[in-house]
């Protein structure tokens, strides 16, 4: 098994991440959305015949934890331990990977827990609800817009047999690798880790990778979805359309666009929507390919987000759209570009300023073939950008005429706002599907 390593002498800890490429939430079967999440959580509840209590008691007395990571296109198991206890903690991680209990009683308890947690998180965060609808509207039905924690009905329908099958589906995919951050030298890590943690079986499960031939759905016109939530103090506003991924040769131009339009306190969205008009506490934008949920190298949406106080939504929603239209139509000024170039050049050291970030770059290279430019190459590339280059890219890869717009709040207020927006081909009001 391949092992990627970075040295961190400043902390007496070892972080070990066992990563399964192309084995993520997209592999959840239809009607079982959330199954991967269930399976990974159940892994931590007993292994090798040790009960949940015995297993975690042993692990936690060592000063160690095992957690997991799950996004659309990959998953990981993470061990963090005080380094002197690495050997004993590794034995427990190996049991988790190779001999999970998948105890039916633990499964039943976990299922109820995750369903309650799923509800509570969405009751607390309107953004989560709006974002879930927004991604589903963009990606359509199917696995590409699948959120890691799934759907309530998917969690409810899953069985412990499904969990066992999902374990095979995710962990039998080839290419698993290790990423390690430790105060131990590389040789010591390799000797301890590779000897104890054998590679999982690598027979492909036969399911094709849906991202391989992924083509973004082509929407025509603007579509508005109002998610009804009648008693709110602020509305959620998400709008966007498919654009590019980090593998795009002009990705450096897109970094500039994102920064200028909504990337910091000096950006257009923030200055106008919050600073000048006081409509909202925040306004920002991002490329989904840089957000971490979807494959970084594939096309993903460009998203604008704000959450105006309800009395300001009628002005804030068309304002954000008009700012975006102006960006795509007229591009950026030389002054804005100079500021953004200087900012990205001078902040380049923060791409690599800690061992943990260096390791994350190594993992991105392994998963997606993405390599961050060295400082000088980054500078040269950015300093060569002219406003006309930005405008060319904006007009080729941004589509304000095809926006998916999701508004969450009181339909009585939001429907007239939606009706007044230009270019809307379809508008509908829905209840949040999880309600």
């Amino acid at each position, binding site marked *: 098994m391949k092992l990627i390593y970075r040295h961190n002498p400043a902390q007496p800890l070892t972080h070990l991440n066992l990563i399964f490429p192309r084995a993520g939430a997209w592999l959840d079967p239809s009607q079982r959305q959330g199954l991967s999440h269930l399976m990974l959580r159940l892994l931590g509840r007993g292994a090798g015949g040790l009960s949940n209590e015995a297993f975690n008691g042993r692990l936690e007395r060592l000063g160690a934890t095992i957690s997991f990571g799950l996004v659309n296109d990959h998953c990981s198991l993470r061990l963090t331990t*005080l380094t002197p206890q690495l050997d004993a903690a590794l034995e427990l991680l190996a049991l988790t990977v190779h001999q999970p209990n998948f105890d039916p009683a633990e499964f039943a308890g976990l299922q109820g827990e995750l369903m309650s947690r799923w509800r509570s998180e969405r009751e607390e965060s309107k953004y989560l609800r709006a974002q879930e609808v927004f991604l589903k509207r963009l990606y359509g039905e199917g696995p590409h817009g699948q959120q890691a924690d799934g759907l309530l009905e998917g969690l409810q329908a899953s069985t412990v047999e499904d969990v066992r099958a999902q374990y095979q589906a995710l962990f039998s995919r080839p290419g698993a690798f290790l990423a390690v951050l430790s105060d131990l030298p590389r040789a010591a890590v390799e000797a301890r880790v590779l000897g104890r943690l054998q590679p999982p079986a690598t027979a492909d499960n036969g399911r094709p990778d849906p991202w391989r031939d992924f083509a973004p759905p082509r929407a025509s016109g603007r579509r508005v979805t109002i998610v009804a939530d009648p008693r709110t103090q*602020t509305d959620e506003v998400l709008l966007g359309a498919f654009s590019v991924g980090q593998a795009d040769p002009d990705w450096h131009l897109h970094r500039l666009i994102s920064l200028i339009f909504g990337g910091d306190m000096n950006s257009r969205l923030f200055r106008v929507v919050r600073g000048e008009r006081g409509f909202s506490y925040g306004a920002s934008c991002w490329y989904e390919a840089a957000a971490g949920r979807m494959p970084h190298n594939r096309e993903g949406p460009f998203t604008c987000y704000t959450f105006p106080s309800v009395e300001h939504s009628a002005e804030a929603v068309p304002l954000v759209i008009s700012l975006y239209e102006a960006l795509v139509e007229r591009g950026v000024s030389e002054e804005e570009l100079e500021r953004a170039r200087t900012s990205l050049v001078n902040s380049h050291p923060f791409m690599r300023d800690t061992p943990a970030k260096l390791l994350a770059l190594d993992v991105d290279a392994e998963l997606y073939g993405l390599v961050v430019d060295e400082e000088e190459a980054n500078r040269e590339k950015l300093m060569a950008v002219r406003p006309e280059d930005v405008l060319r890219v904006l007009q080729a890869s941004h589509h304000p005429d095809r926006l998916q717009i999701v508004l969450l709040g009181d339909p009585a207020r939001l429907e007239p706002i939606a009706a007044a927006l230009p270019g809307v081909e379809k508008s509908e009001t829905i209840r949040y599907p999880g309600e």
Partner: protein
Amino acid sequence: LQPAQSFNFMNAYPVRHFRLENGLEAYLVHNPISPVVAFLTHYTVGSAAEGENERGLAHFFEHMMFRETERLRDGDFDRIVAEAGGVGLNAFTSYDTTAYHVNLPAAQLERVVTLEADRMVNLRLSPELIEAERGAVLGEIAMYQDMPSEQLWNTLMREAFPTHPYRHPIVGYREQVQAFTDEDFARFYRAHYAPNRAVVVVAGGFDEPAVRDLIARSYGGLAPGAARPPSAAPDGPWEESRRVELRHEKVSSETLMMAWRSPGLIHPRLPALLLLGAVLSGGQSSPLHRRIVLKGLGTHASAFTLESSMMLVSPGLVLLDVALQHGVPAERAEEEVLALLEALAREGIAGEELERALNQVRLHWHASLGTNMSLARQLGGYAVATGDPLFGQRLLARLEQVSAQEVQEALRDYLTTAPRLTVIQRPGEPETP
């Protein structure tokens, strides 16, 4: 510039501390493996220093610090920091401090230290910008009002502190925030922003003599202001246990919060209470997790002290919070919690439980110090709260010495034999006042 003191943080990070004649305290934390720096400025003022009609002013003022000064136009501050390569420019207001922070390439530190010194004394509080920012602040308050957890928290703090200003939300009240006048801001600035009310921390890889010189040049000529006012007197002991219930139309499951008075961050028994929190809820094998989560009653259960999690100056609370599963009444979890506490108070803490708790604390302590900013926040936060930047390190060392008997006695004295406050949030229509 007064003579510098040198010490070492965690046997890994050399620290130099010096004090300017005008009272500004500076800590330079050298991180030998870092190519960049974190720059953090704490002011010794937070929401607890506000007057009766000023609730939310410290937080609103934090927003205004990013607008204009006598030298800079609105927007210049953010622009200059961005051009310097600054990342993570932001600020936060807490009960006892307001902090401004950014990460920078070391070579750009001078530009930002100069800006920070400028806004310490030269802020322009124009009525137009106050009005524009008021909308953003009200938007932030509205955002919190939409979160069920905020309503629960505000109820808990209001009930737990009958008179102490921790009872008020840090962001204040909408009606008061709408009414703040230009003069309120000017008065607050004069009263609380001055070099003798600031602690600055630079953490990362830098040239120490140059940074010392930079801080002395940038801040040395600023006149000191009024001294830090004394903290509000703590509330007296609770006389009896109380229960409060509230309803929220957007939650479908119940939440239970239980609180007890705790003695304060620098109290000698605080380490035992901290360790008690880790014994109760540190990890999936902890007794609270087993009794609540693994029994299918809740999705989350934790115990902690408020003064350590928020670096409070005044005594805080021991808090225990449980998020219930759908359909499970809070009383069911409450019975389990009380039975657990009684059993531990009666039978004591097993050696294995103490070992687990201590190792989990060690693990999370080290894991929390992975960035320059986390180092700066640890030292600066404790310097403001206790006067001792190494307080966190000393606390960890003290935790290593705490015996099972001390934890058991703390549990008896502060929890099982003491009055408690129970707050339950249930689904349903809120009662109209």
